[in-house]
């Protein structure tokens, strides 16, 4: 399984974003995982617990949002929101359906802390 590898990429992307906005740490992190992305949310949580210490996301609340799956029936022309993958129309039972989306793997939003103006200046100076 590749959740550790996904988490390594995720933490690297989060570090980059935190630096980009000039923040110092992440309080809350929400990601979006599609139902057919091939990613196991439980394993991703384990990977976060294991890999986040020592990064800007250490101690952050980690939330995974899994949107419903959109399935469109080409016979009865209706779109359904389903909790699991299904290859038949829930309405007419036909098999001429199209599964739309569901493979997303995104950082959706995060809540970040900024160092107070005086504090951050001092810390940075002491490093140099």
């Amino acid at each position, binding site marked *: 399984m590749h959740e550790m590898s996904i988490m390594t990429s995720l933490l690297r992307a989060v570090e980059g974003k935190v630096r980009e906005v000039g923040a110092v740490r992440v309080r809350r992190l929400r990601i979006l995982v599609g139902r057919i992305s091939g990613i196991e949310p439980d394993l991703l949580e384990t990977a976060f617990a294991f890999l986040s210490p020592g990064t800007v996301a250490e101690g952050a609340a980690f939330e995974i949002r899994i949107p419903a799956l959109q399935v469109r029936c080409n016979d009865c022309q209706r779109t359904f929101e389903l909790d699991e993958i299904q290859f038949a129309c829930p309405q007419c039972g036909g098999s001429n359906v199209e599964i739309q989306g569901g493979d997303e793997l995104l950082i959706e*939003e995060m*809540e970040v802390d900024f160092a107070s103006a005086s504090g951050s200046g001092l810390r940075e100076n002491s490093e140099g």
Partner: protein
Amino acid sequence: MPVRQVQVYEKILKANDYVAQQNRQLFDRAKVTVVGLLGGPGSGKTSLLERTLEKLSGEGQKAAVLVGDLATARDAERLGRFEVEAVQLTTGGACHLEAQQVHEALQGMDLEDLDFLFIENVGNLVCPASYDLGEHARVVLLSVPEGDDKVAKYPSIVRRAQALVLNKVDLLGAMDFDEERVWNDARALNPDMRFLRLSCRTGEGLDAWLAYLDELRTGAASA
């Protein structure tokens, strides 16, 4: 401490996608057609490559292969006899190839000299799905003995591929395998997908597969 909410909406694997895009640019510049082969262990990825390389070399086309494997160099050895460059990428236990590994392997290759480059991923229907390598086409190989439920069970890889190849069709009569189910599930996941059926053992369907490769080649050449 001041707190702020930041909307991000960025792909988690954007770093991999970026390197994949660089790979694609290298491929396009060198006018080489690059095909990724994905499938479970034993689905016939290496066998299909053997049959393909045999035919391509008969037509005077030059091909090379990058083979991902957890620990061994067996596949590269199998393919080496076709006098094509076969580079083994040993992933050291990792379950998939990433764009960066491919990028590094490309440094030692003369892409300009090639018509086709095949990238055989690690035998796995889950993990390789997430990682774009920069291929022009990703081909998922499924074989009859694996069962007709595999498309439904591994939707992500089917969704992110351009073609689905059903291998070992010579065994259809011997198994309870509903071929229609496979195609129907795949169509639901990926309506634009190309479907091919073949047998590496008997050679049935190989002409259509080669025609598909040729189509990719001319498509890539005109791009």
